[in-house]
């Protein structure tokens, strides 16, 4: 048996290429074996899958025979199934830019520091400097805030997260249920109609805003719950004074060095 093995090994030749790949590239940059040689060496034919027979597609008719009626009655004519386009544009149509309405798919991301019940400092608008309570984020992405009204005169209002600084002070407002009707449509501005009356545009002076009875009612309802939530907080009394106060920067205070 030993002789037989020795004989076979001798016939096969010494593997001078031990350790390196079989099909290494030669000094000239060309591979040692051609694609065809490798096909046979690796016995790729053993692993090739059988080709699936080509599906026979029904050839669609281009012309269709139609009868000629009317003036030139009798006989038939060939009519195209799909008519040729009537207009060949001379310039390439620029592709329409995709609509940037990703906001429709989800409300904008909120800063992690802003959560329901957080006390925030308003930075712009009529109520700038006031400490207000953030209630929730509306569908449009704007925040619903309330003073509460009795503490600082800020009503139920929408505000963009960019115009507030969220402090680290939080009130547990899980017990506060904001009515379902208080949404973006509730706060949407009512456009005054510019109607032409007797050929002249109506003298639409800027109407001074007066809160509707509905708004007053909703304000009272929500604030009652919010004030109850604040009172439950162990620092409730101080928090009420805090919400009634206004934020200002003193000498030596720099916002980038402060913790809010």
């Amino acid at each position, binding site marked *: 048996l030993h002789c037989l093995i020795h004989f076979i090994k001798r016939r096969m030749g010494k593997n001078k290429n031990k350790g390196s790949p079989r099909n290494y590239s030669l000094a000239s940059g060309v591979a040692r074996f051609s694609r065809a040689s490798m096909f046979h060496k690796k016995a790729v034919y053993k692993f090739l899958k059988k080709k699936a027979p080509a599906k026979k597609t029904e050839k669609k008719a281009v012309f269709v025979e139609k009868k000629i009626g009317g003036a030139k009655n009798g006989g038939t004519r060939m009519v195209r199934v799909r008519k040729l386009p009537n207009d060949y544009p001379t310039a390439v149509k620029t592709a329409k830019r995709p609509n940037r309405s990703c906001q429709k798919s989800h409300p904008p991301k909120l800063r992690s520091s802003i959560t329901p019940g957080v*006390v925030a400092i308003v930075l712009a608008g009529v109520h700038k400097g006031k400490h207000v309570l953030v209630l929730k984020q509306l569908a449009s992405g704007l925040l619903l805030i309330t003073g509460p009204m009795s503490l600082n005169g800020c009503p139920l209002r929408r505000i963009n997260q960019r115009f507030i600084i969220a*402090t*680290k002070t939080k009130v547990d407002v899980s017990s506060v249920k904001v009515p379902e009707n208080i949404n973006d449509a509730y706060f949407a501005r009512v456009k005054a109609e510019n109607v032409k009356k007797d050929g002249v545009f109506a003298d639409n002076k800027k109407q001074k805003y007066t809160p509707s009875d509905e708004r007053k009612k909703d304000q009272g309802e929500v604030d009652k719950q919010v004030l109850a939530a604040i009172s439950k907080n162990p*620092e409730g009394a*101080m928090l009420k*004074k*805090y919400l009634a*106060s206004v934020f200002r920067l003193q000498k030596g205070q720099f916002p980038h060095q402060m*913790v809010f």
Partner: protein
Amino acid sequence: MPFKKFVEIGRVAYIADGPCQGKIAAIVNVIDQNKVLIDGPTSGVSRQAYPLKQMHLTNLSVKFPFNASTKVVRKELEANKVDEKWADSAWCQRIKAKAVRKSMTDFDRFKLRKAKSQRNRIVTIALNGKKKALRKAGKI
């Protein structure tokens, strides 16, 4: 004005900068003009070379031979109660107070303001009462 705190073997220094910021360590040996070998086994500073520029010398010092092992340094620091003396020092307490002040939230600052004004009101009322009494007595 003569120098009072020296870079010497056993001098306790407060590390003001670098990876070990905020901790104290003892000087074990001097490497060159700018670097020293420090070790703070009781304060969590491993034995290492440290630039003198990033350290501030304290008025505390202990005695051990140069290049003493960490075991010896630890024994000396504990025997001299360096950690307690450092914690009691005004310097350490000032550092802690600064850190608290920096981490105050806006609500904390508001409460502090209110507390200060309340205290000042009490002081002013008491002071004015005393002034009034003295004025009445013709002493002012």
